Structures are given as C-alpha cells and as structure tokens.
C-alpha cells in the first residue's frame, strides 16, 4: 500500500476539520471538528510508523522500529481526553452565562 494514499486521506480529514471550524458557529461542533483534526494527525503518525518499520525490517528482521510513533499516538489520545473534559466544562459554563453556545455572542471576554 503506497504511503501517499494515507497522507492524502489524512490531509482530506484535516481540511474537512478546518472547514468545519471556519464555517460552523456552534461551539460544540467546532470542538468536534478539532477532535477530527487530532484524529487525522494520529492516523498519519501510525501510517508513518508502519512505513518506518517496513524500511527497517529489510535490514534487521527483529527490529522494533516504529513503536515510538504509536506511543506518541497513545499520549496524544491521553492529552485529547484531558482537553475534552476541560473544554466541555468551559462550554457548559458559557451556556450557563449567556444561554447559548453560539460563538458569535462570545466576542467580548466580559459581559
């Protein structure tokens, strides 16, 4: 499987996420688009890890190349989970204050 397929798939997912962040005004959907962008990057990291393994395995059959990239993906997922919990708490607080999740109403920091 050529690596270009996976790169272009990840680029497409990332661009859809960017377009969603720019077009939608609902804070929760913007947040979900950010999650989509994080997942596109994760997919690209795993694909590069397997490419690195495929290059290294021709020289050394017992290689463990590519393990680090998959651990980075694991840590990205950990950070994303922490980010979601704080971000959703911020969105709930914002809904409690202005009774909407529309980011157009958030153009000033103080109400």
């Amino acid at each position, binding site marked *: *499987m*050529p*690596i*270009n*397929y996976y*790169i272009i798939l990840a*680029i*497409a*997912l*990332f*661009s*859809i996420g*960017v*377009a*969603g962040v*720019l*077009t*939608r*005004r*609902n804070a*929760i*959907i913007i947040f*979900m*688009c950010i*999650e*989509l962008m994080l*997942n596109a990057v994760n*997919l690209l990291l*795993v*694909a590069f*890890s*397997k*490419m690195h*393994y*495929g*290059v290294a395995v021709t020289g050394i059959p017992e290689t*463990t190349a*590519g*393990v680090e990239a*998959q*651990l980075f*993906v*694991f*840590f990205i*997922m*950990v*950070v*994303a*989970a922490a980010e*979601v*919990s*704080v971000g*959703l*708490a911020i*969105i*709930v*607080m914002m809904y409690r204050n202005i009774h909407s*999740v*529309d980011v*157009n109403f958030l153009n000033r920091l103080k109400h």
Partner: protein
Amino acid sequence: MNITEILFWFLTALALGGSLMMVFSKNPVYSVLWLIVVFFAISGHYILLNAQFLAIVNIIVYAGAIMVLFLFVIMLMNLNADNEPQKNKWLKIAGVIAGGCLMLVLVSAILRTEGLKEQTLSLSGSTGLIKQLGKTLFTDYVLPFEISSVLFLSAMVGAVVIGKKED
C-alpha cells in the same frame, strides 16, 4: 484488487463521508453520531495497519468516553432542535474555500515530493501489538506515562472548578 485494497477504500469512503456529514448536518446530535462513525472507520484503518492496541484504545477512549460526554452535554443543554442562526452566507462559502485551498496546497506539495511516491508501508509486523508497546511504554517512557496521570488529575480538578456554580 485484493481484499486489503477493498477494505482500505471502503474505510476511506466511510471516514470522508462521515466527516462531511458531521460538518454539514444541522442537528448537533446527528453530528455526534456521524463523528462516532468516523472514529470507527479510523479504528478500522488502525486494524488494517496492524496496530491493534491503538484501534482498541481509539474505540474505548474516543467512541466510548469522549463521544458519550459530548452527547450528555448536548442533551443537558437541550440543543437537539436546530437553533443555530444562519446569518452570513458568504462567511460559510469563504470557510469552505479556505479549507479547500489548504487541502489543495498540501496535496500538491505531497504529490511533488521526490522519493515519497515509491515509499510503501508494510501491513505486517508486530510493532503495534500490546506486547511490544507495553514493554516500551513501561521501560523507556515510564516517566511521561506517570506525568500524564498528573495531567489527568489537574484536568479533573480544572473541570470541577470551572463547572462549579459561582454562588
């Protein structure tokens, strides 16, 4: 076209279609459900790449925990009705054009890169299995693993403090 390529194209179509539906559906609950479809497609890609540990973690953490959290918040706020004001049409068109331009630039840069076209990835190998990953995680990366637990604790405290009522 063998079974791997058929699976690859099926999962790719599922991921791209699901993400487009996620961005363009009016109801936020439908957006969450389409995003779950996208996460399952990406987990399928991980299984295809022989990264079983990440596939299972992706399903458990993203499709299981995070998306349930999103659904709870949406239902708590009673947002299932479409109440997003459709104000500026040109702003939306500009956003779609900006995303498309980003994709165009990146794809053309990738397609013109020398030496990348003949690179392939191996779908076999045991690097994605739990045995290898766990051994590396608990020997070389044990300090970042422990620090991430502190990060989780601080995120939990932060979420409780932010979500608390003021008065």
